[in-house]
């Protein structure tokens, strides 16, 4: 390691030699950086899970364009849309089809004492709404009133229950005063707003929610003709439906707006984002403490070197060398611990808390930058001082 660093740096790797000379301090410093890494990874994991679960229901949609109420910040927020807009949309050039899409919430109180909070999708079962083979294959069964498709990736749904349903044993349960039969399962997964999803026909939905009417779906799903740009059709729709009660966006635009709202407007998103900042600050403080103590401990030696003509850039390079070594050595246990904790969290919450290569690299570079900033601050005392003042 010393020989490698000597070659790389073209000088004695004083930073590395100083770090390894005091092994207990090195271990504490690595633990500190690793802790900061874990803190940042966890907050990024939560934030990533929020983003991922926000996009989950949009992903299998066949529709290209979503017509929503103008106050709909997310898929489940906002008022309903007048069905009249559906008919207006059908008359717009480039539109292939338009379908109503109903959304509701339902808490399934299970016999085993657990509760599953479902987001209920009410769809026209005669049309392909989701580009998911499992849903598409089962949608014919939804035409029978009071049947449902159950999200087997929802929280508190045992694999045995899902296997039983898919094995041909429908599961009957009470939902808002109706007895529903789960006839098949599909997989979307848990999010921050719901434990999972339930898909029913529009007719079953309206039976489950008697206060809702067929004339006011939550969204209108629009598909465009093959070869036609969804952006162009969306623009055409905006011209054809000038009323201010709706907002017309492509599904990708709606998903992006939902993500932005969840991460920057909702308290949970702001808290996770703030957590990342706190993680970085804690990391900065830990690394600054380590490096500034190290600089203070070697002040006389540095002053001696300054006295014989070493420049400030030399001392900065020593501290930067230490900072980068700490960043890399702290990152390795940090990322390994974070991977373990991600697994634990995914098992416990059903949320997709996953490590991505981009995130790992971003944290490594972020930690390195954090360490370099701390190092630059730690060497300030050396910069302007006369060597004689440092002895």
């Amino acid at each position, binding site marked *: 390691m010393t020989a490698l660093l000597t070659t790389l740096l073209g000088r004695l790797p004083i930073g590395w030699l100083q770090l390894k000379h005091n092994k207990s301090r090195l271990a504490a410093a690595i633990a500190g950086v690793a802790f900061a890494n874990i803190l940042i990874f966890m907050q990024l994991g939560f934030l990533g899970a929020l983003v991922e679960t926000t996009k989950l229901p949009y992903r299998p949609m066949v529709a290209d364009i979503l017509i929503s109420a103008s106050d709909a910040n997310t898929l489940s927020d906002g008022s309903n849309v007048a069905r009249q807009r559906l008919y207006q949309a059908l008359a717009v050039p480039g539109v292939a089809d338009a379908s109503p899409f109903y959304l509701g919430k339902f808490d399934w109180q299970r016999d085993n004492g657990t509760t599953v909070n479902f987001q209920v999708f009410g769809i026209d079962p005669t049309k392909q709404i989701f580009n998911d083979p499992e849903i598409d294959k089962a949608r014919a069964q939804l035409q029978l009133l009071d049947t449902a498709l159950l999200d087997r990736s929802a929280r508190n749904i045992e694999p045995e229950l899902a296997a039983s349903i898919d094995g041909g044993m429908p599961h009957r349960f009470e939902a808002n005063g109706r007895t529903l039969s789960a006839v098949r399962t599909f997989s979307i997964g848990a999010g921050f707003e719901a434990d999972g999803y339930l898909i029913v026909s529009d007719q079953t939905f309206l039976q489950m929610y008697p206060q809702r009417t067929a004339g006011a779906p939550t969204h209108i799903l629009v598909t465009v003709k093959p070869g036609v740009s969804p952006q162009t059709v969306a623009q055409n729709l905006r011209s054809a439906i000038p009323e201010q009660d709706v907002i017309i966006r492509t599904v990708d635009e709606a998903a992006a707006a939902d993500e932005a709202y969840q991460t920057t407007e909702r308290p949970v998103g702001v808290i996770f984002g703030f957590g990342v900042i706190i993680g970085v600050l804690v990391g900065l403080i830990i690394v600054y403490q380590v490096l500034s103590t190290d600089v203070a401990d*070697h002040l006389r030696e540095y002053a001696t070197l300054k*006295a014989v003509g070493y420049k400030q850039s030399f001392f900065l390079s020593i501290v930067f060398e230490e900072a980068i070594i700490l960043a890399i050595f702290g990152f390795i246990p940090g990322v390994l611990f974070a991977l373990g904790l991600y697994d634990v969290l995914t098992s416990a919450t059903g949320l997709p808390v996953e490590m991505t290569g981009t995130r790992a690299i971003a944290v490594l570079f972020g930690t390195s930058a954090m360490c370099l900033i701390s190092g630059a601050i730690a060497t300030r005392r050396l910069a302007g001082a006369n*060597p004689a003042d440092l002895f």
Partner: protein
Amino acid sequence: MKLFNKDIAQTSKAAIPPGQQSPIHIKGLNHWFGSGEARKQALFNIDLTIERGSLVILMGASGSGKTTMLTLAGCLRDVQDGSVQLLGQELNGADENVLVACRRRLGFIFQAHNLHESLTAMQNVRMGLDVHGPQARKDWKAPATHLLNLVGLGDRLDYLPGNLSGGQKQRVAVARALVGNPDIVFADEPTAALDKESGHQVVSLLKRLGTERNTTTLMVTHDNKVLEMADRIITMEDGRIVKDEAMQR
């Protein structure tokens, strides 16, 4: 073991620039510490010229201003008032680049050895060479080994300071100060941590450097045992030079 009895000519790698008979020339030097009511004058109108190749000892009671003068002449402290010309370069008002260039022509030996505890004796000495650029960084082994041999530590090259005695550490510091072939050596109590014989040999080495390489040495010491080797002894009292005597040979 007889220390420092080897040829020091091997350390010479560059000639001292010609035309500088007085590497240190001080005129009207005043210096203060503190500010406001706590401001206290440490040096009063010092005039001093030191000849090239001489071994000059600064003596005086504690607080007499000798270390302050050493640090001012050695570019370790900003000159506030008066003139300090070091190797022909005025230090009063000099920018950092000028100070760095001057410092690279100096060697320092401090009372405390100030060695890097994580570096071996060889690596500590190497630090005195690396500052001189890529070529010095490439060819560091031979001069570093030679200097450590010269101070009697040829068998301790790879020892960390923690495994050396106080005197041995100080001798590593001496080797570090001399390995860069300095024009002037500033030494503040260099023999304080050494036994009588080692102290005598360190000063002998500095004296020989003056004779053979024209290296000038300005040394602060309370050690009466080394006075006989001085070319000149300057005594300070309360920030003033009260006695300046050339030694007869």
